[in-house]
C-alpha cells in the first residue's frame, strides 16, 4: 500500500543559529518525550531540507501523524540549550507546493 506523506515547512524562531544535527536532535527528542519510541516510529519523520541561515526547515511525516508531530514541534522550547520556538508555517502533500510557496528559503544544505 502506498504510504501517504505530508511535508511541513518549519520556521525556527530564535536569535541563535543551529546546526542541522542540533535541530534534528531537538525534533526527535520532542517526539520521543511525548509519544515514546513506539509512537515516534510511526511518525515516519525525516528531515528533507534545512536552511541554517534563514532558520527554515522542511520535514516529512506520515499523513496520519501530522497533528502529533505538530504537537511535538510546539513543545520544543530549546535547541542546544538555547531558547527557541518552532512554528509550522505550512503543511503540504507535495514538496513542489512548498517550494513554490517558500521559494529560496527551501534551498539549503
Amino acid at each position, binding site marked *: 500500500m502506498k504510504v501517504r506523506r505530508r511535508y511541513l515547512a518549519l520556521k525556527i*524562531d530564535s536569535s541563535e543559529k543551529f546546526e542541522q544535527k542540533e535541530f534534528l536532535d531537538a525534533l526527535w527528542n520532542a517526539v520521543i*518525550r*511525548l509519544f515514546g519510541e513506539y509512537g515516534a516510529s510511526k511518525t515516519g519523520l525525516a528531515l528533507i531540507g534545512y536552511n541554517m541561515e534563514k532558520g527554515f526547515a522542511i520535514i516529512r511525516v506520515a499523513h496520519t501523524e501530522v497533528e502529533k508531530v505538530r*504537537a511535538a*514541534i*510546539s*513543545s520544543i*522550547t530549546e535547541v542546544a540549550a538555547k531558547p*527557541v520556538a518552532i*512554528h509550522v508555517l505550512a503543511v503540504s502533500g507535495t514538496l513542489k507546493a512548498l517550494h513554490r510557496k517558500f521559494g529560496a528559503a527551501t534551498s539549503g544544505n
Partner: protein
Amino acid sequence: MKRVFADINLKPNLNDMEQVRQMVLKASELDYRLIALPVPASFSSSLEKHTQRLREICKERSLDIASRLNLQPKTPRELLQFLRKWRRKFEIIAVVCESKAVARQAAKDHRVDLLNFPAIDFHGRFFDNAEAELASKSQASLEIEIKPLLTLKGPARIRLLSVLRREAAIAKNFHVPIVVSSGATNPLLMRKPLEMAALATLFDLDKPSALDAVSKNPLAIVKRNREKLSPRFVAPGIRLIKMGKDC
C-alpha cells in the same frame, strides 16, 4: 468561514512596554485577532494609562484587545467583594482558585468567566464533577494554560497531562466550555493557534473542540460581556434600540 483565533492570556511584564509591544506584534504575526493581557487586581489603579497604551499598540496591528482581570481571592467573601468592585470595569474576569471554597463560589457565580487552577500544584486543582456542574449552570469556562506543558519536563509534565485529561473529560460531560490560552510570559512561549490546538489534543480534546477552545469559546465570552457592558444592554436578548421622543 475562516476561524478567528484568540489568545486571552498573554502575560508580559506590564511595566516593560517593550516586551508588551513584542508580544502584541508576535500575536499578530501568529494569526491571532483577539488578545487579552490579564491585569492583577493590585495593578488596577494605574489601569487607564496602561489600557490606553495597549490599545494604541494593538490598533497599529489591527488586533482587538479585551480587558481582563485575574482575581486571586483568599476567601469566597473576598471574591464577592472583588466581583462587586471590578466586574463592570473588565470584559473578562478570571478567578485563580487557590482553595476549594473559592473554586466553588467562583463556579456558581455568573459574573465569573474563567476558572483557572494552579498548574504545578496538582492538589490545588479542584475541577471535579461538583465544580463542573456549578460551572455549567453559571456559564463559567475552564481555562487551561499551555505554558506549563512547555516548561515542565518528565514526571511533572506526565502528571499534568493526566490531570488535564481528567478535567477535560469532566468539562465535556457537563458541557463546560474549555478555553485554551498560552499564559506566555515571553514571545518564545507563544504558539500559533493550530499549534495550541495540537497541544490540546494531548489531553484528549478532539480537533474541533480543541479549535473551539482557541477561537469560538474565548470569542463568545468577550462578545457576551461586551454586550452586557454596553450602555444599551437591558437583559440577555434585550437591547435598547431607540429612546426619547422618537420612540
